[in-house]
Every structure is written in C-alpha cells, then in structure tokens.
C-alpha cells in the first residue's frame, strides 16, 4: 500500500454471519413481565385466523448475540462520526447528539398523534417554532411540515401549484426541469399528473434563459429549479427566470436540497421562488441513518397557502394550538398523522443551537468547498468555472486518458480512509466528481482529503491498474452488481 495514506490504517474487523445463521431453537433475548390477566386461548379467540405454527425461520438468539451481531455489522460501515463524507448534493454534516437526546425524552418520544390537543401543546409549540424558524430562513409566507422526505416535499409542492392553477381555471400540462436536476424531480412531476420537458443548460452550466423564454407557454405549470444548481453554482439570472414564468402565469419551484449554501446569506422568498422544499436531513442535520428517515417541509408564498396539505397547525382563540383537518381547498393528506415529528424535533434543536449564527455554518461550508476546489483544480478537470458555492464538480477527463474513470477514483479514495464523493452526477458532466465537504470539516480534514485526491491523481497516471481494482483494504472487493440484478437473492432462506 502507498505510504501516502495518512488518514487510515488497517485493523482487524470481526466476521459475522446472518442473524438467521446464528439462530438456534430455545434461545431468547427478550422477557416480558408476567401476564396479569387470565390468558385467552388464541385458537378460541381467533378461530381460523390463528397462526398456530408460529413464524417459520424467525430468529432465536440471546441478548449478547444480538448486541454483538449489530455492533459487528456497524463496524463495517463508514460514517460521518469517522470522517469526512464528501458526497455532493447530500450535505453529510455533523449530527449533534443532543438532538438525539431530546427526541427521546419522555413527553416527546412518548406522545400519541391522536391524543387530545390540550395534552399536546408541547408538541404543537415545537412545530410552531420550527415553522417560524424555517419561514425566517427561507423568506417565505407559509409552510407545511407534513412531507416525509424531499421527494414527498416535491410532490406536495407540485400539488400545491396544480391546485392553485386549477383554481385559476387550468392546471396546465407540463413541468420544465433542467437537465442537471435530481432524478426525483421528473419522477415526482409524473405523479402530480404533469408531462416533463427537459431544458438544457447553457455552456456555463446555467439555465438557458433565452431557451426558457421560448419554452414557457401557457401549457407550462412550473419550472423546478435547484439553486444553487447541482453544479454548486448560483443561478445568476434567477429573478429573470422567475419573471419569465410569472409573466406567463407559471410558478417557480425550488428544490431546496442545496439550502446549505444559502441559510443566513440569501432567502429564496426574496429572489422569486413561489414554493420550495427543504431537506431537514441535509441542511438541518437530522441523521441520514443509512438512508433515512428525513423530512421535507414545503415553504410557499401566500397565494399557495389555502392549498396546504392537512393537518394544518392553527392557533385557536389566539392561544391554544391545534391541528386542523377541515380545510376546503387543501390538496389533501400526504402521509398519515402529523409529519415525522421526531425528525422535526431534531431539526429545531439544531436551529436553536445556532440561532442567527447559522450563517457561519453556511460560510464555512462554502469556504471548505472553495478551498478544495482551489487545491484540486490542477489535478482534475473543472468543466464549469463559475464561482462555486457549497460544492464543486470536477470531471475525470484528465484521468480518462489513462482509462481511469470517476468510479475508479472514488473506490481508491476508500483505501485512503474517505467515503467517496458523488459519482456520475449531475448528468450534464460526463464522469462527474461531485464534492460537498460541508461546514463540519476542519482545515486538517480538508487537507487530508486534498492530499489523498492529489495522490490518487498521480496514481492514475503512474499505476492505473491500482485504481481499477480498488478498494484493496476493505472486507470485500467490488461486488458483481450485474449478476446480483440478473438473479436477485433478496432474502435469506
């Protein structure tokens, strides 16, 4: 192994089979308090519905085995708690532990969504304060905390637009989406009943405003834009874009995935956005947890407010808070109960810790991205050179000359002790390396990353084979994904 790897060393990790492979009849890891009422015979009570044979194959293990099993598995993961996670567009920042603590308090974690609102004022005040904070940060007029994730936020936003336009007499047919957009945008538009029309970016990576002017007709309901874009670049002509849409009665939707570049420095409500979602699991630090849960609140201008999904948080008699479901113009309900409350609690705890100082986090995130850009721009090709905000996108064009692609570089980065950056996205950059350090990385960690990337760039020129078979230090090598998809094995038997 190269001596240039300064961040990581190898150490032994424990082997562990599947839970089902360590199971043995008669073991158990959980005891219930004794039953304090007369037993009911299941066969009598349930008749033909009785599951008389129990659950075939269900695990039978002891407590220490369960603890060790999952602890061993955990050591096979990379995590923010171990180091930088430079995934572009994912905003993998520090997840403060106090947020976990408060979300688990008695009186917070224990509350039932259908209990009387008089006994839920604490929960409702938390929701109210979070709404107020997010409105201040986005500069919008109204908000819903209901959506379960960014993609559901997008759907909620488009349904709001649809309801608003329908009320004007015509819901229209199309949603415009730039070719640099997240895949969720077009997938969402279809569920909202819209046809998707892609807009190509101009050579500088910005929305082509002249092209947009041609495309916006009275068939167009909205443009879904990500700002800063997935290239990490602010749309300079954002207010012209909003103007073109508004002149034709269409609305501007903003995917707030990159809000970490703006919080405390600029507000979408000020630059013409009509409706947007936030990813609380990105900008507002709620843990990714290996893929979720997230939350995708949707903030909007006043004109869309009547259509918010139910339940809507309201103040009754000027004092007591309540969740209202009787809203005649509402788009309806997007998930059961009242939002992913536990996620919302964590996001509020994060905001309270920063207060107005949240702008410092934004500044540090942008500082880190630009520092990395400056230090890597000679080693890697920078296809779009406009100023970067919270992330920077390189391409593998230089390394391609040695037949090394972005995936090879990413896999080699694992040997250096880092999680890879985002590969092959955005689609407008062939062989993209999309790097978002976030504010959570120290100068030292950024320097280690730069050192690793430069070293890999050198290896790509001198020893490309080393990269093509990377990673070399993990428990397993690259897995045969093609074979896995051809004959899928999706469960243990």
């Amino acid at each position, binding site marked *: 192994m190269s001596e240039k790897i300064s961040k990581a060393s190898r150490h032994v990790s424990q082997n562990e089979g*599947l839970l*089902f492979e360590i*199971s043995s009849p008669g073991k*158990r890891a*959980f*005891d*219930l308090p004794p*039953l*304090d009422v007369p*037993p*009911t015979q299941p066969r009598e009570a*349930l008749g033909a519905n009785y*599951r008389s044979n129990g*659950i075939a*194959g269900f*695990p*039978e293990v002891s407590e220490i085995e369960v603890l060790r099993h999952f602890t061993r598995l*955990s050591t*096979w993961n990379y995590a923010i708690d*171990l180091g930088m996670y430079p995934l572009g567009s994912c905003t993998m920042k520090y997840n403060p532990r106090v947020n*976990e*603590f408060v979300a688990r308090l008695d*009186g*917070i974690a*224990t509350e*039932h*969504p*259908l*209990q009387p609102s008089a006994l839920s004022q*604490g929960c409702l005040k938390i929701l109210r304060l979070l709404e107020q*904070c997010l409105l201040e940060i986005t500069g919008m007029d109204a908000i819903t905390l209901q959506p379960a994730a960014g993609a*559901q936020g997008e759907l909620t936003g488009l349904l709001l637009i649809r309801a608003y336009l329908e009320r004007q007499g015509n819901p229209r047919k199309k949603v415009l989406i730039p070719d640099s957009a997240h*895949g969720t945008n077009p*997938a969402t538009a*279809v569920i909202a*009943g819209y046809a998707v029309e892609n807009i190509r970016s101009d050579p500088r990576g910005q929305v082509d405003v002249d092209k947009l002017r041609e495309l916006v007709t009275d068939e167009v309901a909205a443009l879904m834009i990500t700002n800063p874009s997935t290239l990490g670049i602010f749309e300079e002509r*954002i207010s012209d874009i909003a103007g073109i849409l508004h002149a034709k009665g269409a609305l501007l939707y903003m995917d707030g995935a990159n809000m970490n570049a703006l919080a*405390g420095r*600029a507000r979408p409500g000020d*630059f013409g956005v009509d409706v947007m979602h936030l990813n609380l699991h990105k900008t507002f630090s709620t843990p990714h*947890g*290996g893929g979720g*849960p997230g939350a995708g609140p949707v903030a909007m201008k006043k004109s869309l407010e009547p259509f918010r999904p139910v339940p809507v948080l309201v103040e009754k008699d000027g004092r007591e808070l309540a969740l209202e479901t009787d809203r005649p113009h509402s788009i309806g*309900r997007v*998930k*059961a*109960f009242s939002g992913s*409350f536990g996620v919302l609690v964590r996001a509020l705890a994060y905001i309270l*810790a920063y*207060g107005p100082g949240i702008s410092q*986090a934004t500044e540090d995130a942008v500082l880190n991205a630009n520092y990395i850009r400056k*230090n890597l721009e000679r080693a890697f090709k920078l296809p779009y050179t406009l100023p970067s905000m919270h992330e920077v996108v390189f391409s593998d064009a230089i390394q391609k000359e040695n037949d090394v692609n972005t995936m090879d570089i990413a896999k080699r980065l694992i040997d250096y002790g880092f*999680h890879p950056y985002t590969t092959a996205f955005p689609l407008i950059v062939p062989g993209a390396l999309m790097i978002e350090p976030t504010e959570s990385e120290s100068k030292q960690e950024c320097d280690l990353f730069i050192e690793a990337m430069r070293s890999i760039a050198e290896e790509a020129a001198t020893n490309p084979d080393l990269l093509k078979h990377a990673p070399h230090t993990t*428990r397993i*090598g*690259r*897995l045969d994904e093609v074979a896995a998809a051809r004959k*899928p094995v*999706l*469960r243990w038997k």
Partner: protein
Amino acid sequence: MRYLPKSPAERDEMLQAIGARSIDDLFSSIPEPFRLREPLRLPGPYSEAEVVRYFKDRAKENSVGYTRFLGAGVYDHLRSVVTDTILQRGEFLTSYTPYQAEISQGTLQAIFEFQTLVCQLTGQEVANASMWDGSTATTEAVLMAERLTRRRRVLVARSLHPEYRDVLKTYTKNVDIEVEEIPFGSDGAVDPQALQSALGEDVGAVVVQSPNFLGVIEDVPSIAETAHLSQAMLVVAVTEGVSLGVVRPPVEADIVALEGQSFGLPPSYGGPFVGVIATHEKFVRQMPGRLAGQAVDSQGRRGFVLTLAAREQHIRRERATSNICTNQALCALAVTVHLSLLGKEGLREMAEQNLAKAHFALRELVKIPGVQRAFAEPFFNEFTIALPCPVERVNRQLLDEKIVGPFSLDSFYPDLPDHALVCVTETTTRAEIEKLASALRVALAVGCETA
C-alpha cells in the same frame, strides 16, 4: 460555535489560499439585491443545556402521567434499551444510503435481514428496504398493482385506516385512477356482497386492512378469492404488526403494505415510522423503493448491494416506479434489532399478551350498563364499543382521572356515533384496565344524565 471545527486564524488562512479577501467574496455570485444584510431573527444561539431545557419544558406540556387507550394505527409496545443502543452507534446513525457497498456492508446486511424478517412475518416472498410509513406503502402498493394490471379502478375498504385512504386519494387524484369505497357490514368486516358487485374487469386492486381500523380481523382468504376471480390484485395493509405473532399472515394477498411502528419505534407524535411493501417474487420489478440483494466479489466472498436500481428515480427519472429516494432506513434498522431481540417466542408471547389483555378489557367494559361490543368478529388488541352517549363527552371526564380514553370514531365514521375504538397492549396493566372500567362507569352515570 461548538459544532464548527475552525479557528478564526484557520478561516483566514483558507481564504488566503483561495485568494479571497473576505468571506463575502465567496458569495459574490448571489446578485446584490438578494444578499441578506441583517442577521436572521432566530432564537438562540443556545448552549446544549438550554436546548435540553427548552425541550424538557415542552415535554411537560404534553401527556406525561396519563394512561392511554389509544391505538388507531400507532401503538404503545415494550422496547428494549438494546435497540436504542444500537441505533445510536454512529456507524449506523451517521452513515449515508449504502451506494458504496464496500464500506456499507453493515447497513446492507441489516437491510437484507430486515427484508427477510418482513417476508417471514407476512408470508410473502420479497420485501423492500422500506417506505415512508404504512399510508404511503399502501398507496404505493396500489400504484404498483395498477402498473401490473393496467386497470384504473381501485376498491378500498371503508375499514382501511381513514388517513391511509386520504393519502391514497391525494396520490391517485391526478393520475387517472378511480378510488371507490367498499362498506363494512354489521359485523365490522368488508361486506362481501358489496365487494362482489363493485368488482369488474376494470378493477386493478382491492385494498383491505387486517385487523381493520375497527379492530376486526378480515377473512383475507375469501376476499382474495373474490378479488382474484376478477383478476384484481389484493393489497392487504397491516397497521399493527404485533398481530402477526398470533394472527395468520395474509398469504393470499398479492401485495402486503406493513406499518412497522409497533416493532421498536416510539409513537413520537406520529413519526418517523416505517412502511414496507412485501409481495411475490414475480412482481419485484414493479416494486417501488430500494432493495438489498446478495452478491459476490471477485474472490467469491458474500456481500450485499442495492440492486434492481433500474426501477428507481435516480436511474429511470420520469419512468421510475416511484419518486421515493430517502426512505426510513434507521427505522427499519430499529425493527430489525427489535425483532431479533423478540425472536420467535418473544413475539408470540407479546402477541398473546395483547390478545389476552384486550379480551380481558372487553369483558370488564361490557359489564358496565350501556356499554356494548359493536362487532362480533374476532379481534386482536383493538375493539369497538358502543356507548350510550357521545365519546368525546365521556373522554373529557376520563381526563380528570388521568386517562386518555379510547378513540372516538364519529369524526371518521358519522354512521358510528357514540362508538369508541379501545386499544390495549402488553404495556397496559390489569390495574389500569380496571381503573378505566370504573372511571367509565362513573363517567357514563354522570355524563349521560347531563346530556
């Protein structure tokens, strides 16, 4: 700020390296009129102690100290401290979606185990890595059935959770799918005649919940037979997973949409929970959401990867099976750890305790003059009772005894006035059940007279 790892000198050093005079230079691409001049008006900054105090103060304004008899899709069950211990390991808590398999084997193997456990519970062949909750899982199951059958009409039992029905309506409104409701009979179960006559060759899916929202266990085999005679797919929603420890799984269903909250997740005022879709192997390519599958590396070592991604939005964009991206991975991990702890015997025992306590509660409550069991069909841990006066009025009096009474059904079912849905789990003690019975007896004596 304690979360930010830079000194002022380091910031200056980095700015210098970039060649920027000040941090404002890095924001110069934001057009001048849109640059914020003033600090945001936000509360804080709070120290850790102040953050904790704020939330402890809010917690006191909630229902601490009350005994609840509420279920209706969210259940109180015992949880082991081991579950939270595992969930709070940073390697699980702070990791991303496992796209980079070589350094995500922990998450991937846990998902594979989750998928297996869900298959064993539901009697289905494959399960996905999770959906947002039971309501969106049910909705996605319907959309999946529509793709598979290419039929545009859906028959939904009125006894499906009303909020699940609402979500289904929100999602289907703009994609040319017609939702029609099937009533329940006097026994609280899906009315077989009504189902039979609503079926037709344009019906793609029949959706029922079992145990249903009124607590009644549906006759899934015969509903399946009826649906299948018209080549419609049967979607069965399960909101109370613990029932599967003692109730026969819906093996006749084509798709099962399960809410996993009962397995290790606290009520948390409505979320985050975890939905999951389980189905037959032959339908897997129309399934929404992520899937973990087994694979081997070049040396033949077993590992796990996210697979069949060609169904998903990041590959297929507007032709994806769903727009879901972020799911409920950590909640699915909670379910996996919790079910590993419970195991075969623990889950059976927990389910039998629910059954016994709910039946005991019913026997105690119907002793009270004026209280009647509403439906005769078998139930698990929830049952409907009819009271002689409005439930809301009775519940207000129960609050004085520190009891959050049963769920009042009349807001969702105006045809069931004065009906209440009682939930009793293994966490409810005999003493609490007896206290409810005596408080209800008093409340009915007083409350109905003042009517």
